[in-house]
């Protein structure tokens, strides 16, 4: 009888373990409070985008702000909270899917290059400040001067309902 109870408890524990949601533990979960701001070069003629429009830009489906001003996509390297939020909310892809997406996008001749990958906040800000048409996702708590923060769905980082968090 005791053996049967032990076996039942073990099976029950195994089932419970399998049922626990096992999403990847990410940096996003370790610092949920920070919103991610979408910033552009200060001369970019845009102040407000819907999340769908932001998605089209980050997917490379929209490649021009105006006829003379191409979009320059800037992405942080893996294992940063900014990238994690962009992949989860905007792309809705894993790192693997993201890598494969851009290989396919170039192969389909829809773009000539993947987004520019930067390894530090400073480089990211320098790029967005220096490059006309540049767009990036940054930590909304610490936005440097010289860039323009875009409203997303009419909201700024910190607003209730802001989608990039």
């Amino acid at each position, binding site marked *: 009888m005791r053996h049967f109870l032990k076996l039942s408890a073990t099976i029950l524990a195994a089932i419970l373990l399998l049922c626990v949601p096992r999403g990847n533990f990410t940096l996003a979960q370790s610092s949920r409070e920070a919103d991610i701001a979408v910033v552009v070069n200060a001369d970019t003629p845009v102040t407000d985008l819907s999340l769908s429009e932001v998605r089209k830009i980050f997917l490379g489906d929209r490649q021009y702000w105006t006829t003379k001003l191409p979009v320059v996509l800037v992405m942080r390297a893996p294992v940063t909270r900014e990238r994690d939020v962009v992949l989860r909310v905007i792309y*809705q892809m894993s790192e693997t899917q993201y890598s494969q997406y851009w290989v396919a996008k170039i192969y389909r001749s829809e773009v*000539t290059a993947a987004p*520019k990958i930067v390894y530090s906040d400073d480089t990211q800000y320098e790029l967005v400040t220096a490059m006309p048409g540049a767009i990036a996702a940054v930590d909304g708590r610490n936005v440097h001067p010289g860039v323009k923060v875009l409203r997303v769905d009419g909201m700024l980082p910190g607003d209730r309902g802001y989608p990039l968090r």
Partner: protein
Amino acid sequence: MSAAPAAGAPGGQPAPKSEREAQATREAVQQYESHYPSLQIRGFGDVDFSATDTKGATSGFNMGEFDLHIASALSRKVSFFAEVTFNAQPTGYNLEVERSFVRYDYNDHFKLSFGRFHTPIGYWNTAFHHGTWLQTTVDRPFMFMDGGTFTPIHMVGFLAEGSIPSGGLGLGYNIGVGNGRGSLIERPGDAGDVNNNRAWVAKLFARPAKPYGLELGGSFYRDKITLPAGPEYREWIAAAYLTWTKGAPEFLSEFENVNHRSISTNQVANSDAFYTQFGYRLPWFERPLKPYYRFEYTHMPLSEQVFAYQPRAESIAGIRWDISNFAAFKLEYQHLGSHPAQGGNPAQPAENAGFVQTAFTF
């Protein structure tokens, strides 16, 4: 809509940087600036094993397509793209220039290409090109088989493409004019048109903002075919597709009708083909496993004069395992039946086959 702040939001300001740090950052930024021409080469390859119960057929390994894709921005608005494949033959390798075109981007709404490109008929032909790593399955559907005749895979000419302002509907278009099919109808007439008639293609598609991942579209293709023996045909191809490509689930479905009318006799033949493919990326172990199933059906009437008579019904089932971001294994079973509506095709008895493929990009 109020103006967004043009500077930092409340919170910590960056600490002042030393001149050395600032110089290092400037140098780093310079490295990111675009230089022209900027040549990028990516390769695709696959190695396959196949076995079949067809009498007289042999099992064994074979080298798949070795594929090099070249992309080069020549300026901010001008780019060059090319794709070259090497296919194993008993006597060596066949080299084929699959795509080679220069593209001028005016803006998102108008991009113009000149050269040899994949004809924008349906979805598969412009979504997966030749790299088997990109596609879930081992092989392409019969209707888009490279070297096949059902769909004119390539076109030599010009192609205009872009998005159509349509809000959340996400409309886009392709309009192309080119040589059309050559005297060997599986080839596009690279060295010149076989007749004085240009082919044209028009495609309209939608990638709605919601639901994200959905794409649907339709296309028309018109050509005049001149066969080597002399007979000429008018060709109309109408195609439609619906896809959902988020991976869990993945759904692709296309239908294509090919209408041939003999110019001399007015005899008409309509051949149809469709496929439906399901895939589902399983949620375990970082989602590398994707089981899939595809059903294909090709109907050809006995009056078809342009195509070799190849009606078929085919089922494939398999699993794809992404062993890394850029390499995958595929295990696939294929059942190919003869066309039941024709009472069976005696020249093509049902067959079963198994495939193992490793496909990769580098």
